[in-house]
């Protein structure tokens, strides 16, 4: 058991740090959730990609560096510590790409991944529907067979990034007659500007259009944009949910950097002892999350699957993030209600943490049933 990095890993860290020091913009970019900010973040993806920093863990042929999980963790620590911008390509990179690596064709990988890596094509996820939130299997949007492809109809919602993104991916019901809701779903990619697609941006709590509703009316998708076998969408979507993606959804580097920023804010406000416990707990939480992830990455590299323990992860980071930002707002006092402070966007984002990627209630059910072995109840 050790926490020591190899010389090569340390060299990788030094290289990343140097690059970031030279390239990270001095002033924060405008919010990712605005048209102007989206464009600025897309340009930043291109800048990252130009030196192969946008997808370090991908194989070299698709624009990455073939970095392992350890190097990915190192990169993320340096990235967030440098105060670098949020990642507009995150949905594609962390949700779609792993599926393509596991279940896509070589043609799909060659076609989709390089433009994802550069930010030329930004992807939105299209999982949820109005009646299918936590209960994802109850999807109703249809994919109907047609010549050479499929016609998509229905409504998707809470599609993050979709207000400004180029393409999207999601599950569609291709065979509505099967008895169980998980059956007969197909995993497809589609163009957000295709005929029949209407994108209606939705403002989140602070009004910024962080997601959108998608209305699909006979949208044609060619067969080449089906991932895996038709009808196998659920299995395909889930099979990558339990792999390292559970680890990579939120990197420890983000929380380490946020906790350090909180400590700085606290110090700047005169180090009030009253908030000492909460600031310390944010630092400790970020450290715990870092080390927990190190341990999980080590197990993964030893060949163990990442299973239901990603539910521990999800609850922990989402609660940490929220507590950290609530502490910051409390330190800001009356200024805390303003949305133009450096903490507001993070706070609003943190409010969504316990909801998306499987609500924390669902995660606790999973922990109880799959990790503790408690009997399934009716919930």
């Amino acid at each position, binding site marked *: 058991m050790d926490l020591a990095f190899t010389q090569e890993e340390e060299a990788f860290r030094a290289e990343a740090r140097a690059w970031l020091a030279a390239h990270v913009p001095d002033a924060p970019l405008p919010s990712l959730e605005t048209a102007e900010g989206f464009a600025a973040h897309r340009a930043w993806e291109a800048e990252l990609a130009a030196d192969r920093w946008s997808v370090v863990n991908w194989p070299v042929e698709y624009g990455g560096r073939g970095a392992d999980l350890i190097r990915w963790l190192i990169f993320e620590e340096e990235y967030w510590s440098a105060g670098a911008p949020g990642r507009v390509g995150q949905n594609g990179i962390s949700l779609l790409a792993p599926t393509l690596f596991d279940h896509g064709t070589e043609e799909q990988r060659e076609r989709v991944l390089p433009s994802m890596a550069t930010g030329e094509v930004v992807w939105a996820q299209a999982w949820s529907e109005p009646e299918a939130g936590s*209960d994802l299997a109850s999807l109703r949007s249809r994919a109907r067979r047609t010549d050479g492809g499929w016609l998509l109809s229905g409504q998707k919602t809470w599609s993050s990034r979709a207000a400004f993104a180029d393409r999207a991916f999601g599950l569609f019901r291709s065979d509505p007659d099967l008895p169980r809701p998980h059956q007969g779903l197909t995993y497809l990619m589609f163009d957000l500007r295709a005929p029949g697609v209407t994108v209606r941006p939705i*403002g989140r709590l602070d009004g910024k259009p962080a997601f959108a509703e998608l209305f699909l009316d006979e949208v044609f998708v060619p067969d080449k944009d089906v991932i895996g076998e038709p009808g196998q969408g659920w299995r395909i979507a889930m099979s990558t949910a339990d792999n390292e993606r559970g680890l990579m959804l939120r990197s420890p580097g983000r929380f380490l950097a946020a906790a350090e920023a909180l400590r700085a804010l606290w110090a700047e406000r005169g180090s009030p002892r009253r908030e000492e416990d909460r600031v310390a707990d944010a630092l400790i939480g970020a450290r715990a999350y870092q080390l927990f992830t190190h341990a999980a990455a080590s197990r993964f590299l030893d060949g163990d699957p990442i299973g239901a323990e990603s539910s521990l992860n999800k609850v922990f980071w989402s609660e940490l993030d929220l507590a950290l930002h609530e502490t910051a707002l409390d330190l800001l006092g009356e200024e805390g*209600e303003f*949305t133009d402070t450096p903490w507001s966007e993070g706070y609003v984002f943190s409010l969504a943490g316990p909801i998306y990627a499987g*609500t924390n*209630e669902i995660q606790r059910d999973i922990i109880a049933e799959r990790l503790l072995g408690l009997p399934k109840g009716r919930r």
Partner: protein
Amino acid sequence: MRFLLDAEQRDFAASLDAMLTAADTAAVVRDWSRGDHASGRALWSRIAEAGVFSLAVGEKYGGMGVRPVELAVAFVELGRHAVPGPLVETVAAAVLLAGLEEAGPAERLLPALASGKSAATLTTGRYALDADMADVALAVADPCSGAPRSEATLFVTPPPGRPDGPLAAGSPLASGSRSPAPAARPDSRSSAGPGAAHRTPLRTTSSPTPGGPPPRPSLDPARRLFPLPSGGELLATGPQVSEAAARALLLARLSTAAQALGVGLALLDRTVAYVEQRTQFGAPIGSFQAVKHRLADAKIALEFARPLLFGAALTLGPADVAAAKVTACEAAYRTARTALQLHGAIGYTAEYDLSLWLTKARALRTAWGGPRECRALVLSGGDRRW
């Protein structure tokens, strides 16, 4: 001892609730948030007609006497319906003006506040709520800071287009006209400095004075907080201001507590209704025990904030009022977190009306005395033994 609202008070709450329910306050909030005050002004008049502002104004000025219990009753309903505007500030301004030694300002301004012809804003800090629409804008120079209490001063701005100044009789609501640029006061300090004596020009246009500073954006879009320009016309000074301001602050805090409780109650009601109809995994999510227990906790928090609120209204003890403020606001925020979590993504959207209450629950926590300040007041004692 009968620590219960009487029938009249309950009827008052019910009639306000009915009026506000019919008024479609969510649409009013959305107008207001865009700087369009027309529907809000209309609602303001109806709230005044219902007698709400009269409850902060003595009988000799056309009100019903300062009645904290009834004010608390009213502000619970105003919060329940997320009514926008300088409601708390108008109450506080009325109490402040009535507390001055000189009767002049009160005589001239209070009748219009009581009747709803004027709205007032009042600040002791750097920002004034809805300064763009308030007819009377008052600024107290930091009575709560370390400055000796006798140094407190009160500034007021003349109503626009009325060269005879703020003490002119009637002070009716002018509309559509722009205020003149306020005369700079040579002895006023910078607008940024804490403890500075500020004033803000009176405006009745439905958007901030062109060229003036825009409101600083609040998470609650209905809260339009304007930075105060320097300058202002001195209205009163000395210990009378400090004393009147202290009482005004108590009423402001009490009203904010009531508003927060109303916000929390509305969030709970809406969430209970939502979880009864929202189905996942083949059952209404309101039948899941984890959901039920979170809502039960919200109910407990709100129901124990309620007696603190009315107790504080009866005693007006600073510790009682502070306790009510922090407890009502924490209960409302806790309920907001629960409401958001149980609604899921739909609750996270600005377009869904729940957001109007969610964001207000957060913003009210720090308005008129944040949790830290209130808890410190509780510990400092000063009340009779509880």
